């Protein structure tokens, strides 16, 4: 009797392990395929073509190619912070938001930058041009008061 139930129990465990393995394997397989099909690995790097994996960004890439900053900055230089953790945190959150928006289609056709991303971009301007803008900032215009892109909106990509 005890032996029987022992056998039954190990059979159940075996079945469950088998099931978990199959389910996990299937999910992992489809997931990996989707990730590769969507060129997921490229998102970890800096290549600007990556941003145009999503067709919505094609125009911005085209415009960047014609912009004055093409030779000195790629998308990530202006749109992610200049430190390792900040960079991948912003990549992850933007990646999530963009995937959600472009999959559902719930986004304005003329894409609007969010305030947090605008701050990142403003910081990027100052990262490279800080020496020049300190002379402007010392007149009392801090990063909050002046927005570089309000006047220099063509430097990166004007759609």
């Amino acid at each position, binding site marked *: *009797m005890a032996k029987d139930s022992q056998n039954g129990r190990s059979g159940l465990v075996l079945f469950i392990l088998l099931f978990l393995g199959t389910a996990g394997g299937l999910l992992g397989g489809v*997931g990996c395929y989707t990730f590769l099909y969507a060129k997921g690995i490229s998102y970890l790097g800096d290549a600007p073509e990556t941003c145009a994996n999503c067709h*919505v960004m094609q125009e911005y890439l085209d415009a960047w190619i014609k912009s004055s900053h093409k030779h000195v900055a790629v998308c990530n230089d202006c749109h992610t912070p200049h430190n390792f953790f900040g960079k991948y945190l912003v990549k992850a959150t933007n990646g999530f938001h963009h995937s959600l928006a472009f999959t559902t289609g719930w986004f304005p*056709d003329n894409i609007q930058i969010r305030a947090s991303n605008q701050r990142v971009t403003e910081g990027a301007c100052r990262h490279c041009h800080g020496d020049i803008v300190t002379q402007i900032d010392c007149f009392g215009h801090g990063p909050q008061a002046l927005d570089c892109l309000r006047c220099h909106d063509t430097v990166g990509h004007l759609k």
Partner: protein
Amino acid sequence: MTLDSSASKKEARQGRGWLGILIVVGLIAFAAALGVTALLVNIFQRQQEARNPFMRVVEVTNETVDPAIWGMNFPMQYDQYKRTVDMERTRFGGSEALPHMPDADDPRDTVAGSKIERNPRLKRMWAGYSFAIDYREKRGHAYMLEDQSFTKRQQVQQYGNCMNCHASMFAVYNSLGNGDMQAGFEKVNTMTYQEARKLVEHPVSCLDCHDPDTMELRISRPAFKTGIRALKASQGIDDYDVDTMATRQEMRAFICAQCHVEYYFAPDESRRLTFPWYKGTRGDDIMAYYDEIGFTDWTQADTGAAMLKAQHPEFETWSQGTHAAAGVACADCHMPYMRKGALKISDHHVRSPMLNINNACQGCHRAPEEELRERVERIQDRSEEMVGQALDGLMEYIDSILAAKEAGVDEAILEEAYKCQRAATFLIDFVEAENSQGFHAPQESARILFRAMDYLRKGNVLLGRQTTAAALPEPKPAPAAEESVEDVEAAPELT
């Protein structure tokens, strides 16, 4: 025995626990796999869309009038086109669906708001003309034929030439003229409205703007070809041929300008629809042309003056504005590019940009939607104020003429006074009837209204109307300004 049974119970409980976990894990894996696969399919679909801009499933030709057939090849554009049935107001225009009791003359159950009931000054301005009978807000393209067929203006005999803009005419002109559009056009001009109405079924359709083989934009109204040739000639460009000489961006305005313009019907038996651009497209240029050929639309019932009616000079007004100068065409704001999945199409739901600010404005203007709306409405507010004052001035002026007639003023002076009424009415109408409430070219509209006021001033001087300070009503001092008025008055006593 008892030990044994409790152990087996425990085992059974454990077995049920494992089974629960199994079900939960199974469900999670099921949902996750479902979601990931759906995402995969979505990504696949977007990538496919980006490869195939459209699929041609039926043949469309120059005889394919029914837009539903074109819609099989261009389902997204067709869906948008059908949405012109929407009735939505902006702050200053557009249509609200007002209930209407269908009757023998007019089977519509909804109509747009009446502009002459809302603004009775218009009724008096047009007294004696059919626009004083019925004049309503415009509805979308879907209603262009229906609203034209059932307007009470039909109580006056209308002609086939109305059909040029209220129906799909490309195939009709072609078949009536055996391939010669001009000949077909001439035939429709001389028909009665009822005769011409029988030839048409659809409002503006795909083939009125697009070549079925290439989908290129094309001009389908002979009146525009003649008109634009005259306009270009006035600018020193001879033998302008719009079919071969217009750029794609120009066509994105010219297509609309085939109908959204000022026009008249030749007063001879040809009754030819003509665009009066021989001296230019500004309101006063057009009026100068009408004066030169001695054209008159109707006789004003109150005074008996020979009058002009402005239609809806959207193209003429736009061409004087800052957007035209920047190369922005009608379609850029009224049919802005939109995204459908991975495809970019132009929005065939033609409507006010105020109902679609993100697509229509924010492609160029990097400012928040609310700020852009306020900017537009600020311009429109001012235009409304100016038009209102001009109309008040016109109403008073009509009274002045009537008083002068009563007083037996010399006929020669009255004749001059009528000319001022005619000019002021046409110019005010030129701004009032234009579908943008002054937005298309704010300064030009203001200039036109200023000229209208100048005609009223000259007319009043002619008639010897009391315009001295004594005849003016007591000015109402603004509350905030009272103090400074006292200060000024007190000043002489101090010195």
